[in-house]
């Protein structure tokens, strides 16, 4: 079997779940039942849509808590790193636990701004580009869109059920262990996906 890398990209369209909550308690209850791709949407939206902007927190759940004055919950949730999870149900349980452990029922009140649970209707498309060698791989990444970087570097972990991103997996398979490790350690939160792309290319072109 040939070990070639298939370049793909990811597109989303937001779909409203119809679930709107006004309080922390309602939020926790909804989190228990909402479609798992809604959790995916809210945990990854900052990297997907806001990567080019400075953001207050790493995900949109935290931002809602912050906006409504629940700074502790916002901070606690912002440290849940979705990149540590390839199983969205496990990620859901972690989020619920963090909220339940840190939430005091006496805080319950109707907030001014509701939270709307959106889900991501995703489509992963093949771009018709392949890499058989490291040089072709670098060239392919140089010609990749931000959505493609997002898929291979971020969400392919969920598809492939591993915490190792697609680029690194392929690099491991051709024996480029150091490059694979360096790329897998990159932190996508403080920098934009454009910068991630540059950094990946820099690592790949390095010795």
């Amino acid at each position, binding site marked *: 079997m040939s070990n070639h890398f298939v370049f793909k990209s990811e597109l989303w*369209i937001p779909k409203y779940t119809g679930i*709107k909550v006004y309080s922390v308690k309602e939020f926790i209850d909804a989190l228990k039942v909402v479609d798992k791709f809604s959790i995916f949407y809210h945990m990854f939206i900052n990297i997907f849509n806001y990567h080019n902007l400075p953001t207050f927190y790493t995900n949109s759940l935290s931002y809602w808590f912050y906006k409504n004055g629940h700074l502790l919950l916002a901070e606690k949730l912002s440290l849940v790193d979705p990149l540590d999870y390839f199983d969205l149900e496990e990620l859901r349980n972690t989020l619920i636990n963090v909220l339940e452990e840190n939430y005091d029922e006496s805080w319950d009140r109707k907030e001014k701004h509701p939270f709307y649970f959106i889900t991501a209707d995703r*489509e992963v498309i093949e771009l018709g580009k392949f890499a058989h060698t490291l040089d072709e791989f670098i060239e392919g990444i140089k010609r990749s869109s931000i959505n493609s970087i997002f898929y291979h570097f971020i969400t392919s972990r969920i598809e492939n059920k591993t915490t190792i991103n697609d680029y690194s997996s392929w690099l491991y398979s051709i024996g480029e262990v150091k490059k694979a490790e360096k790329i897998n350690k990159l932190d996508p939160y403080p920098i934009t996906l454009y910068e991630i792309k540059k950094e990946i290319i820099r690592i790949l072109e390095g010795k």
Partner: protein
Amino acid sequence: MLEKYIPFVREEAIDELFILSKKLNGLKVLHVNSTYKGGGVAEILQRLVPFMNELGIKTDWKVFKGDEKFFSFTKNLHNLLHLPFEKKISSEEFVYYLKITYENLKEINTENYDVIFIHDPQPMGLIVNKLKTQKWIWRCHIDTSTPDPQAWNFIENFLNSYDACIFHMPEFVYEKIEIPTYTIHPSIDPLHPKNIDLPEEEVKNTVAKFGIDPEKPLILQVSRFDRLKDPFGVVKAFKLVKKRYDCQLALVGSFAPDDPEGESVYKELLDFICDERDIFVLNLPPESHKEVNAFQRGATVVVQKSLKEGFGLVVSEAMWKSKPVVGSNVGGIKRQIVHGITGYLVESIEGTAMRIRQLLANKYLREEMGFHAKERVKHRFLIIRHLRDYLLLIYKILNQSS
């Protein structure tokens, strides 16, 4: 045509559009709205329809025709979907709506299409012609979060026969909708005369033509002369700013043909500002796109102090020109401005004045926010993203059945 957008969104994004559209090869799509000219829907379709054809998806655009009586009813329906008020829908109006719908059914052949987009309530009744093999999508451009129950019942007569609906944002969706509901933001076109780059000299000359000093800071609001845009509040905020900063205010708008109140608000505004030297209330002819563009580029700070707003794309237009925007925390304004990053969201006249002062005092802050504002629009509010969302939606809806 699409290649002209490469400088804005990069070549890879355009390539992906072509790849996605291959999945829709051979498909026939129809858009129906109620006007070819005027208004945001027509403006978007003028671009989207040729784009879809360029991508190999045979796309047509047809206009639903009605008379004054019909459109006066649908205008009332529009208002009732927005907010309940006293004027109700009569059974005679319902019958008239159906009569005009049946007349249009003879003119608008929907049979030969696979996917049909119906924009807003006017042509909604065409759904009675839906074939089992077709997908029909209702694109709603109205905030229906708190509709008049009777108006909503009217809409519901048709809505549940559609395969999906689209709203600008989740805040606009009425709770009782049962069909799949997507949220797609509207967009601006960077190649529209409203948004194209202009030489600095042209910007200066244009504002100077209206008596404005191009070298002095300029606060700007672009909007219809409508109380809901709160031009009086903007003037009050400006007066608070003016105590410490030597600056000018321009309220730029035009009379909309469907808004009989515009002229009286304009006159009232002129009385309100009295002979204030640095306030300019400018009623421009409807097609003054390049002039508005020049005002937005010439402004130091842009304001959108609406009391209620649909999506308010004029905010994105200003952000595209790297301007920080101080906007009310309402409607689509709060989806466009990222508070503290691309501008500020405010709740009052005082808040508006305070943020304008902050921005006037700090050039670095203005530039930083202006940079992020343009980036925000580039990624989220340009027409190419809008087109991609539509293609993906079509693909998803067609795939649901299989």
